[in-house]
Each structure stands twice: as C-alpha cells, then as structure tokens.
C-alpha cells in the first residue's frame, strides 16, 4: 500500500509509523516526495526510530548500518542520500530503548535536517534564477506569453490567441511554479526544524 504524507517532524513521523504497524502496515520504502510504501502483515506494536544523515561514501554508509545492526537495531529503510534512516529494535538484542542516549544528539537530527532543507532552498533559488531569462519573469504573468502583440489584440482575437498559447505557457511555467513552491516549503521546513532543534535542547 502506498500513502502520501509529509511530516517534517521526526517524533510525529515515528508515531505515524507506529500507528501504521498497529494496523498491520510495515514501512518498506520512503521517498523524499513523501510517498511511503507499506507491506501488509499481522498488526504489531512497534517502536520506529528515525535518524537523519546523508553519507559521502558507500563505505561510511555501510559502517553506519553495521554499527546499528551490531547494537541491535535493524536498518529498515534509508539510502546513502535519502537523509531519513529508519530503524526498528531487534527483539532481545537492542540494549537501549532509543537510538540516541543524550538530548544533544537526539536534537542533532533536526539540525542536520534543517541544513539539508536550507541547501535545497538554495538549489531551488538557483534554479529559479537560471530559468528566469531576460524575456520572461515568474512574477510577470504577461511575460509568460510569447505571441507578439497579444495583450493589445481586440476581444475575440485576443481570447483565441490567449487560449491557444495557454497550454504551452503551462508547460513552460509549471517547473518554475513547482520550484517556487518547493523553495517556500524548504525555507519553511528549514526554519521549523531549527525551532524543533532548539526546543529539543531545552527539554529537561
């Protein structure tokens, strides 16, 4: 089963996965567009834990997974570049009830997530600048249409030309709008994760 959900808070995401397991759905895959893939089995009470890390080499990633496995945590899902890393305690083998043993490191995942969102925000802004040419700007709707003299045409002729070009405009502008909204989302998540980071540090 697939489910689309965007949860930019690890604690809530862990709760969501635990609730899904109670209904008999087990996380199999996740992609950064927010699509969770679940496998159906008998319901169980589980305790998912999420870390957030990307790795510069395959060896580092393998070492990371090996360390968690050694410590009794099954690496359920996550790739070198996925960021979110999902873990489940291996019954009888996990020696701690969490993958973090102090609040600084538990909060640290929000800090890394925040920086990643900020990096994505910068990437989106760069794309927006690259795609913005001299001839058309995202904030100027009139510049989206290339038909010469379109805006000065009389009534019926205008509508004909306008409707004719609109599908092309949508194709041309859609990526821009997408990047624009993603930039806003990444900016928002970056700030929110920073707040959560500070909040977690303050919890006694």
């Amino acid at each position, binding site marked *: 089963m697939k489910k689309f959900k965007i949860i930019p808070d690890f604690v809530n995401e862990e709760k969501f996965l635990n609730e899904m397991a109670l209904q008999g759905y087990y996380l199999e895959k996740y992609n950064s567009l927010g699509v969770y893939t679940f496998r159906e089995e008998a319901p169980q009470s589980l305790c998912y834990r999420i870390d957030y890390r990307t790795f510069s080499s395959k060896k580092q990633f393998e070492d990371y997974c090996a360390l968690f496995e050694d410590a009794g945590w099954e690496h359920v899902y996550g790739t070198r570049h996925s960021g979110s890393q999902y873990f489940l305690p291996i019954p009888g083998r996990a020696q701690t009830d*969490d993958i973090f043993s102090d609040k600084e490191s538990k909060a640290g995942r929000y800090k890394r997530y925040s920086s990643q969102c900020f990096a994505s925000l910068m990437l989106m802004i760069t794309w927006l600048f690259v795609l913005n040419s001299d001839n058309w700007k995202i904030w100027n709707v009139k510049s989206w249409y290339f038909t010469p003299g379109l805006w000065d045409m009389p009534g019926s002729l205008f509508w004909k030309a306008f409707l004719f070009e609109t599908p092309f405009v949508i194709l041309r502008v859609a990526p821009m709008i997408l990047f624009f909204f993603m930039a806003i989302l990444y900016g928002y998540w970056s700030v929110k994760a920073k707040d959560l980071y500070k909040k977690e540090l303050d919890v006694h």
Partner: protein
Amino acid sequence: MNYNKLLPLTETTFYIMLSLATPSHGYAIMQNVELLSENKVKVAAGTLYGAIENLLKQKLIIEVKSEDKRRRVYTLTPEGKELLKLEIERLRHLIQISEGIELGGKER
C-alpha cells in the same frame, strides 16, 4: 591546537576517547564503555556515530586500516592523546583538591 577550548570533555566523549587508546570499531567502543562504566553509561548507536564523526572532524581520532570491510576502525591521533592527557590531569587535580574535604552527613 587550542586544547583548552575543547575541555572539559563530556562524559560520553571521555569514555569514547579512553576506549580509542587501542584501535576499535564502533560496536567495540560501545561494549568497552559499558565495561569501563560498570554498566552505568550506555552510548546508543546514533549518539556514538555522531560523536565519532565529531572527533574525526576535530582530528582527535583517525580511521585506521582494518580487515573488516563493513566496519571502520579508529584510534586516537597524537592531538587526541594530548587532549586526553590534559583532561585526565584536570580530573586528577579535582580529585586531589576534594580529598580531605569534610562535608558532613552520614557515611554511606
């Protein structure tokens, strides 16, 4: 290297660095910390991984060659050894000045 900026070490960092006086991989560090602390300190995997990354970044430990393909092995650098020595001296001094201090209360 400005050692004073890095002192005092957190308890976790102290245990990890002490364990890395001999080359070890992550899980060996975890086990050694439990042993040294008589089960009082348990470093969870995520916390340990972050601590190792930090120590590598600060060049206090370094990765050494190992036969295990999946697990990275680390050991203290000369700077790491120096820092650990300074921390031990600092702790020793604290113990020294607290000896013979009467705080009253019942002996346990």
